């Protein structure tokens, strides 16, 4: 076999690996759309209502796990199982933060969003996707900066970010359908 032929074959192998690393992309796009909608609705319409937020978060989690269950009909991997456990732990922490209620006062949205950022970063580590890791880190940094420097803009900016995430998730999902 020639060196060029071997190079072409290695290229085919890398292509297969790349396709596998993107195997969860349609599912992640749907998740992004779901949580984008939760943020757009929550921060856009009910920024101060703990009850509305709790309802939206529960609906978001129920839909996420339903989508995860549907995905598992097509693909089951060790990373997928770790992701389900990770997001279950995240859900538990979120419930704890919601239950802490008024004691956290104005800091509660920031605490929740830092937890969301951590969940994205951990998902990036589990799935070996640097994009998710970076997105989580930027989300945490942006949250802390806006919360500290422009508190009045916190809810509108997050509503806008949620809307963008919803649109991006839908766009990626539709593009993925080809």
């Amino acid at each position, binding site marked *: 076999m020639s060196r060029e032929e071997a190079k072409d074959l290695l290229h*085919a*192998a890398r*292509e297969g690996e790349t396709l596998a690393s993107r195997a969860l992309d349609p599912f992640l796009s749907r998740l992004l759309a779901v949580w984008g909608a939760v943020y757009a609705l929550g921060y856009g319409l009910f920024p101060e209502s703990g009850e509305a937020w709790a309802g939206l978060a529960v609906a978001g989690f129920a839909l996420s796990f339903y989508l995860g269950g549907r995905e598992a009909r097509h*693909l*089951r991997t060790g990373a997928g199982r770790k992701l389900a456990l990770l997001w279950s732990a995240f859900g538990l922490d979120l419930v704890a933060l919601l239950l802490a209620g008024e004691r956290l006062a104005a800091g509660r949205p920031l605490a929740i969003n830092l937890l969301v950022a951590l969940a994205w970063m951990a998902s990036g580590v589990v799935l070996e996707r640097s994009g998710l890791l970076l997105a989580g880190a930027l989300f945490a940094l942006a949250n802390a900066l806006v919360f500290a420097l422009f508190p009045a803009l916190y809810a509108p900016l997050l509503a806008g970010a949620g809307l963008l995430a919803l649109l991006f998730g839908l766009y990626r999902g539709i593009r993925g359908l080809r």
Partner: protein
Amino acid sequence: MAFDELIHQPTRLKLMAYLARLGPDARVEFKKLQRDLDLTEGNLSRHLTKLEEAGYLRVEKGFVGRRPRTWVGLTGKGRDAFLAHVKELERLVKGEGT
């Protein structure tokens, strides 16, 4: 070390690479595999049969609800064969073999 003639075929190599990248114990449903690798049903079936006969893949049939499904996963033997083959290709590209 000799090349593995079975994995040598580009589509089969790509298929093995896809399954190996998903990690040990991963299983993927036939339709998803077909869609992701952009293969026809017949083409994918033929490759799967050859690889299964060699003990490189395990193919399981079952039902999700009332719908029949076929699941495909890499065996330990298949993973070893794939890694050895890629190593051999890399060695050749680096100019250490013929």
